[in-house]
């Protein structure tokens, strides 16, 4: 299809000043130009975003130094003694994210197997698929409310935490938030495992567990792995659910039951009243968060492309 397109005189491929001038005269080339312009919007937004994140955080990085900003664990804004380090928030983010992933893996894997392998094509699977889709669609603030009014009393009653606000509760809500996403993505990859391979294994006398272990997981493994990586990317940036449950203290989290703050929640909490150096520090945290999520998403997508090609 593409080779034929290229032979068409109107499907202009090169891009130069002369091309632009002639394009304005030709309605069809004008349309090609329009497509180009539309496609430029997203990269432009991305670059502009990166640029303004960097330019807004220069002040904080200049004041504290990049390395010190990342490794210092002090966050205070008393006049004259400003010191800020993002370490507690980075640790809080990573801790809550990986804890959420830990809760998420058994659930999403079973749901994915359920939908993609055991009951593939049956009504039960369709119902579960719809349920996961709906769960994925619920706004995060409603998850936050649920965490506050339903999950928190349970945590308090279990005696895990007095207030019910701690990294553990936050990551539980976070897990509920990312399970549907990870489940539906991994189900796609489990569905893609060729039936011949499975049938061959069954005909050799393999049990269902053996087929899962020796055929399905090796085949779909990289896809499932990338699904979890993308789920991590989701969890890193999740703001509302975490802000409502994590306790919002600026100390280094010492245990799973201590309160803390994530990078997203510190921005959400303090951005409203911030200015000057503090604003710049918050932008610096946003830059770190952006880099982290962008890297994780890129890795996840590249892995997915590889898995799909295979």
């Amino acid at each position: 299809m593409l080779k034929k397109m290229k032979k068409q005189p109107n499907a202009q491929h090169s891009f130069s000043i002369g091309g632009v001038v002639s394009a304005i005269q030709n309605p069809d080339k004008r349309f090609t130009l329009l497509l180009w312009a539309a496609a430029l919007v997203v990269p432009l937004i991305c670059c502009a975003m990166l640029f303004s994140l960097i330019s807004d955080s220069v002040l904080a990085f200049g004041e504290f130094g990049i390395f010190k900003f990342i490794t210092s664990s002090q966050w205070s804004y008393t006049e004259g003694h400003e010191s800020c380090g993002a370490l507690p928030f980075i640790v809080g983010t990573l801790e809550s994210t990986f804890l959420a992933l830990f809760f998420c893996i058994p659930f999403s894997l079973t749901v994915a197997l359920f939908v993609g392998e055991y009951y593939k094509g049956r009504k039960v699977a369709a119902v579960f698929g719809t349920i996961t889709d709906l769960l994925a669609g619920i706004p995060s603030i409603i998850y936050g409310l649920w965490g506050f009014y339903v999950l928190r009393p349970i945590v308090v009653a279990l005696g895990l935490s007095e207030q019910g606000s701690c990294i553990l509760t936050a990551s539980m809500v976070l897990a509920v938030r990312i399970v549907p996403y990870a489940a539906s993505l991994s189900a796609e990859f489990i569905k893609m495992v060729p039936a011949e391979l499975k049938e061959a294994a069954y005909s050799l006398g393999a049990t269902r567990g053996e087929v899962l272990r020796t055929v399905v997981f090796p085949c779909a493994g990289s896809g499932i792995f990338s699904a979890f990586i993308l789920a991590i990317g989701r969890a890193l940036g999740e703001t509302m659910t975490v802000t409502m449950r994590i306790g919002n203290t600026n100390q280094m989290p010492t245990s799973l039951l201590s309160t803390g703050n994530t990078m997203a929640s510190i921005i959400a909490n303090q951005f409203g009243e911030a200015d000057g150096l503090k604003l710049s520090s918050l932008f610096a945290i946003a830059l770190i968060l952006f880099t982290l999520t962008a890297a994780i998403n890129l890795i996840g997508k590249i892995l997915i492309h590889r898995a799909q090609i295979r």
Partner: protein
Amino acid sequence: MVVLAALMSVPLLAILGKVAVEGVKNLTPQFLFQSTPTTYQALIATTSGTAIPGGIANGIVGTLLMLVMASIAAIPVGIFSGVFLAERHDTIFAKVASYMTDILQGTPSIILGIIVYAWIVIPMRGYSAIAGTVALGIMMLPLIVRSTEEAVKMLPSSYNEAALALGGSHFLTVCKVIIPSAFGQIFTGTLLAVSRIIGETVPLMFTALGCAVVQWNIARPMSGVPLLIWQFFNNPTLQPLLWSASLVLLIIVLLLNVSSKIVANKWKI
């Protein structure tokens, strides 16, 4: 195994149940057509034992207005960009743009919120619905680009070739053949994108800010249903309204989700 999978639906049922049971109590016509009460009005109503007056009309109007404006901006750009990325998927520019779309899609909404704050709220010297619209539009764009790209890539190349062979220009081919045949999927993707951004609170917190009355001026601060939920959550006297507002939001989101499923089944290629 079945047990674990069934456990997964417990949160859904718990969330739906809690929101429905608590939300129905305050859900009256006046809840949908009146603005939020002030804390003082709510306090008086609570102490005198009557129901809290007012509702979330300001949020509904704000959400709809910002959503419509964001859609008008993001949908055409997203569809054209998606068509471009699908048609030229082997060029370097398209590959880079495709990865950029992934990055933008994965960007946490809080970052979009503060970026739009830096881009629009600071130069305009005030929070406004325009800023909220831009934030929502940027969130929506990559979702539409992605779904259009996937839909166009799935079309058989014979469609394109037939249209071009009949003498159709590139413009006519895209507008009369490619987009209409992929319409079902594009529409589904758009509905899902709308349903995803309709519940977004964070990008609105630092852009549209919120407003206690129905606001039609897009250069002024405006409220949204998720913003009102956040406001009710933080204000103990207004908490009875919390669940009804959540119920309204949840109904809208679920309706959009279900209708996108129906559309997807109807318009399968």
